[in-house]
């Protein structure tokens, strides 16, 4: 609804705070999501996300939510679907070129962003939307993506020793081991190994 979505923009700072609490929770839940199966979760989460965000932001379920970078004004409500707006046609009164009765979505976006803590994210160049993701859950996507980034960082740390001593790593495989180490193979370390890659504390170790 138009009035509610304008309200959300006016209170962008509050919604930013809400989302900043919500996002880490979703990321923490990733191991559980994975166990249940992202495929099985997709439909119910989509229904939930669509209801909540539809009500608050007139969300169009593009599947690639950037509300945090657009002052809580959904760019898919721009008739030109701009992801980096506004266009050059904004009317003198700040209304939309295409829909004269509507406030330009991007005038709202810059205003909303100015109230937010990390409002300058609006200056980041956004890629075009991937139409094949339309209708899917952006929340689950964020959970997967952030969890994946965490894993990638851990992986990079684990590889640092091998990268610092590349010749040794090639010539003497046991000198800089990268493969999974069963707990019995680490007699001097408390057995805290867990099965998920996400939690596995396989920190790099001096060889």
């Amino acid at each position, binding site marked *: 609804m138009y009035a509610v979505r304008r309200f959300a923009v006016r209170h962008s700072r509050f919604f930013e705070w809400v989302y900043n609490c919500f996002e880490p929770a979703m990321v923490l839940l990733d191991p559980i999501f994975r166990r249940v199966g992202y495929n099985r979760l997709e439909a119910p989460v989509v229904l939930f996300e669509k209801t909540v965000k539809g009500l608050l932001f007139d969300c169009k379920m593009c599947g690639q939510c950037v509300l945090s970078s657009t002052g809580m004004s959904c760019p898919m409500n721009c008739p*030109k679907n701009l992801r980096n707006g506004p266009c050059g*046609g*904004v009317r003198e009164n700040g209304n939309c070129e295409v829909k004269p009765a509507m406030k*330009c979505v991007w005038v709202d976006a810059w205003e909303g962003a100015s109230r937010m803590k990390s409002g300058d994210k609006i*200056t980041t160049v*956004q890629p*075009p939307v991937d139409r094949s993701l339309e209708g899917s859950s952006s929340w689950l996507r964020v959970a997967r993506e952030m969890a994946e980034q965490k894993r990638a960082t851990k992986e990079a740390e684990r590889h640092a020793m091998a990268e610092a001593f590349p010749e040794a790593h090639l010539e003497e495989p046991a000198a800089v081991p990268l493969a999974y180490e069963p707990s019995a193979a680490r007699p001097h370390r408390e057995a805290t190994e867990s099965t998920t890659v996400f939690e596995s504390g396989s920190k790099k170790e001096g060889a």
Partner: protein
Amino acid sequence: MSAERPEDRLDPAGLTNPVPEGHSSNSRLERVLRSGRFAVTAELNPPDSANPEDVYEAARPLSEVVDGLNATDASGANCHMSSLGICALLTRVGYGSILQISCRDRNRIAIQGDVLGAAAMGVSNILCLTGDGVQVGDQPGARPVFDFDSISLLRALRTMRDDGMFLSGRKIKTPPKIFLGAAENPCIPPFETRADRLAKKIEAGAQFIQTNYIYDLPLFERFMNRVRDMGLDEKVYILAGVGPLASAKAARWMRTNVPGIHVPDHVIDRLEGAEKPGLEGKKICIEIIQQMREVKGVAGVHVMAYRREELVSDIISESGVLEHRHAGTGRRRKRTAG
């Protein structure tokens, strides 16, 4: 044997000409701007015709006075000969052309392909635009595309040029050598963030900017102050958009019917009070060009007038901005524009 093949006599893309050191294309516009000279571009309005002579006729008076000719891409969402077609014709006779791409009518597949085609035909300047909505044009029932917006389009073309690949990651054998531009509209809301958006365009890959019509100098100065404060004038070449108004009535019509045009009342009053509004419009335009020359951070002007190419040519000559063009007198400035 191979010399007998007709295609071997052609090198439309100028692949044999090396790109000057530090440049990204063989564009004349890029050379003029990088040399620190005041550049002039003009808009060529596309004919509703399949006859190349109609293009050349419109281009002739402009070709002597400009560094680049913008071939509009269905501007105002009205259907005309395509920008790509016109640019291909212009490059054949050696004119510097600026291909305009609007995101309204083509998706990413079409656009990336067109850019390769254009570069192969020798087009070396591309202006990336969002485009007016279809509702203002002659075929409002058309489906608007807007797969890209001007900023994501800039980034996509920069990727094609600098990384030699499509957005899909597929390799491009010979990347296009192109000088990338974008538009800006400093005189319409939201004023406070127009400079931030310019920064975003530069970040996305814009090397030159052509603004929409500017009739409100104080408002433009405010924008330029912000631009200079942010140091953007050191990163991009800004060409200020100007054009003659035919009469007070025409100015009012433009103001209400063409998206994104701001004409202040005092300009309209001046036209209304004039005996010959046409002449007055020309005078105002020349004055604005001369004032633009003095604005720090403005690298040139972009002159637009719908289907009045002769008039534009006169305006440019009479404004005197080309008088400094004799060898060695160009104002050299250190620029870091990428």
